[in-house]
C-alpha cells in the first residue's frame, strides 16, 4: 500500500506538561480517508499525543502540520476553526444542555447551514433524533459518546481526534462505537483514535502506532500489528 497524502502530521515531536516531558521524538501521520489508531500501555503518552495536537500542552520541539501547514501550539479554540475536531475521553458533552443544544454549540464557529448539519448528524446517528430534547447528561454512556462525536463533527472536519471513545463502555456499545467510527470515516473524514481496546481498534484501523514510554515502538498496518507476535504479547493479551 502506498503512503496516502498526510492530512495531519507529527514530526519529531517533544512535548509534556509543565516541566515533565512525556513524548520523545514522536513521528506519526494520518492520511486522507484513513483510520489511524494509537495503542500502547497506560501512561505511554497516547492521550498526550492528541492533546499536543490541540495545543493543550507544552511543545518543546518538533512540529505539527495540518495540510502541510504548521499548527504547532495553536490554542484549542483556534484549532477547531482550522478543522480539527476533538472528542475528549471524559466530560465530552455538556450534560445540562439537550442533545440538540450540544450540536448547536458544536457549530459555534460555523456561520451558516447549521440546520442542515444537524440533520446530517441525525442521519448519521439515528438514535439521537428521538433524544434531541433530552439533557445529554441523562443519556447512557454509549449515547453520550455518539453526542460527543456528532458535536465534534458539526464543523468542517479535516480530521477527527478520538481519545479512548470506548473507555468504560459495555462490549455491546463498544462494537457500536467502532461501527460508527467506520461510518464516519466512510463519509470522508480521516480519524485519529487513541484506544485501550487495542484488538478492536487495530481491527478497524488502516494503520497503527504503538507507543511505549512516550516513544514510537511499532508502526504498521492494522493487520500487520495484529499479527505481530511481540505486539500481541505486550498489548493484545494473546498467548501464542
Amino acid at each position, binding site marked *: 500500500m502506498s503512503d496516502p497524502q498526510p492530512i495531519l502530521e507529527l514530526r519529531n515531536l517533544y512535548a509534556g506538561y509543565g516541566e515533565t516531558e512525556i513524548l520523545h521524538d514522536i513521528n506519526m501521520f494520518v492520511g486522507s480517508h484513513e483510520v489511524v489508531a494509537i495503542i500502547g500501555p497506560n501512561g505511554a503518552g497516547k492521550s498526550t499525543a492528541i492533546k499536543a495536537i*490541540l495545543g*493543550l500542552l507544552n511543545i518543546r520541539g518538533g512540529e505539527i502540520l495540518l495540510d502541510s501547514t504548521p499548527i504547532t501550539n495553536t490554542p*484549542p*479554540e483556534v*484549532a*477547531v*476553526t482550522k478543522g480539527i475536531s*476533538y472528542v*475528549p475521553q471524559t*466530560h*465530552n*458533552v*455538556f*450534560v*445540562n*444542555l439537550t442533545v440538540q*443544544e450540544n450540536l*448547536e*454549540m*458544536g457549530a*459555534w*464557529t460555523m456561520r451558516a447551514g447549521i440546520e442542515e448539519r444537524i440533520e446530517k448528524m441525525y442521519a448519521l446517528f439515528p438514535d439521537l433524533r428521538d433524544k434531541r430534547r433530552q439533557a445529554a447528561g441523562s443519556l447512557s454512556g454509549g449515547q453520550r459518546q455518539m453526542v460527543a462525536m456528532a*458535536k*465534534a463533527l458539526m*464543523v468542517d472536519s479535516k480530521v477527527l481526534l478520538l481519545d479512548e471513545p470506548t473507555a468504560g463502555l459495555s462490549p455491546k456499545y463498544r462494537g457500536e462505537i467502532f461501527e460508527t467510527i467506520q461510518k464516519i470515516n466512510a463519509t470522508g473524514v480521516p480519524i485519529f483514535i487513541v484506544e485501550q481496546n487495542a484488538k478492536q481498534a487495530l481491527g478497524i484501523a488502516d494503520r497503527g502506532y504503538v507507543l511505549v514510554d512516550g516513544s514510537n515502538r511499532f508502526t504498521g498496518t492494522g493487520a500487520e500489528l495484529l499479527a505481530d507476535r511481540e505486539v500481541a504479547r505486550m498489548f493484545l493479551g494473546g498467548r501464542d
Partner: protein
Amino acid sequence: MWASFGFEFVNFYLIPGLVLGCIYALGAIGITLTFGILRFANFAHGEVMMTGAYLTWTISTLAGLWLGWSLHPLIAAVPAIFAAIGILILIDRYFYKPFRNAPTIMVVMASFGMMLVVRSTVQFIWGPNQLTFVKGIDKPNEAVRQFTADLDLMILVPNKHFWIMAGTVIIMLCFTYLLERTRIGKAMRAVSDSPDLARVTGIDVEAVVRATWVVGGFCAVAAGVFLAMDIQFLETTMGFRMLLPMFAAAILGGIGRPFGAVFGGLIIGLAEELSAYPWIGDAPLISPGYKTGVAFTIMIIMLIVRPSGLFKGRTF
C-alpha cells in the same frame, strides 16, 4: 379568619417577603452566573446594585434640575443600567481579565478589593450620608385594593411593591428566554457546565464572559433600584447588606443554577419576613433585628446537609 389572621399575614408579612425575595432573586442571579462561568464568589456584586441605584438617583435628579422632568425611577434606571454595564465591562477588561487563569481564592480576594474600591469611589462622589431616593409614603394600589375588597380579602399592595414584583417577573421571563433560546444564552450554560469542553468546542469564552457581566449587571442594577424604591433612601452599604442573603439564595438554589438562585432568593426573602410573624403567642417569633441571621442559618444548614443546593449545583 381573614380579618383575624389573613389580613395581617398577607399584607404585612407575605407581600413584603415576596418583594424582598424578588430583590434577592435578581441579585443572586448575578452571583450564581459569576460563580458558574467565571468561577469565583464575587464580593463586589452588592456594590453593583448600590452603584446602579446611585446612578439612577443621579439621572432622575439631573433630569429634574435641568429639564424639569420628574422621571419614575424605573425610567431613570434604563440609562443607569447601560452605564453600570459599561463600567463592569471595563473593570473586567482591566481588572479581572489578568486573573482569568489564577487560583479561585486570588480572584475572590481581588473582588473583595474591588468592592472596597467601588464603595469608596461612590462615597467620594456622592458623600457618605444617606440620600432620599423617593419622598413620601407610598399608597396601596387602589385597583388591587378595590378588586380584592369586593372579594372580602383586602390586599394592600403599595405601588412600589407592585412595580417591583411586576418588574421582576418581566426580567425573569426575558432571562429565561435568553438562557433557553438564544445562542449566547446556551453558550453561557455550556461554559458553566464545562469551560474546558467549551474551549475545545471553539466557543468564544471571552464573549460568554462579557455576556455574563451584561446579564449579571442588568439584574444587579434592577435589584438595586428595586431595593432603593422599597426602602426609599440610598446609602453606600445598601449593597453589602444584601450580599449575605444573596449568597445564601445562590447556595440554596445550587451554585451555577440561575433558576435555583431565583427560587432560593424567594425562599430567603419569605423566610426572613415570615420569621418575624407572631407564630406562637403575640410576640414576633424571631425579633426582626435577627432577620439576617435567618438567611445565615439557612445557608449554614444547606452547606452541611446538602452543599449542592436544591437544584444540584456545583460543589467545591
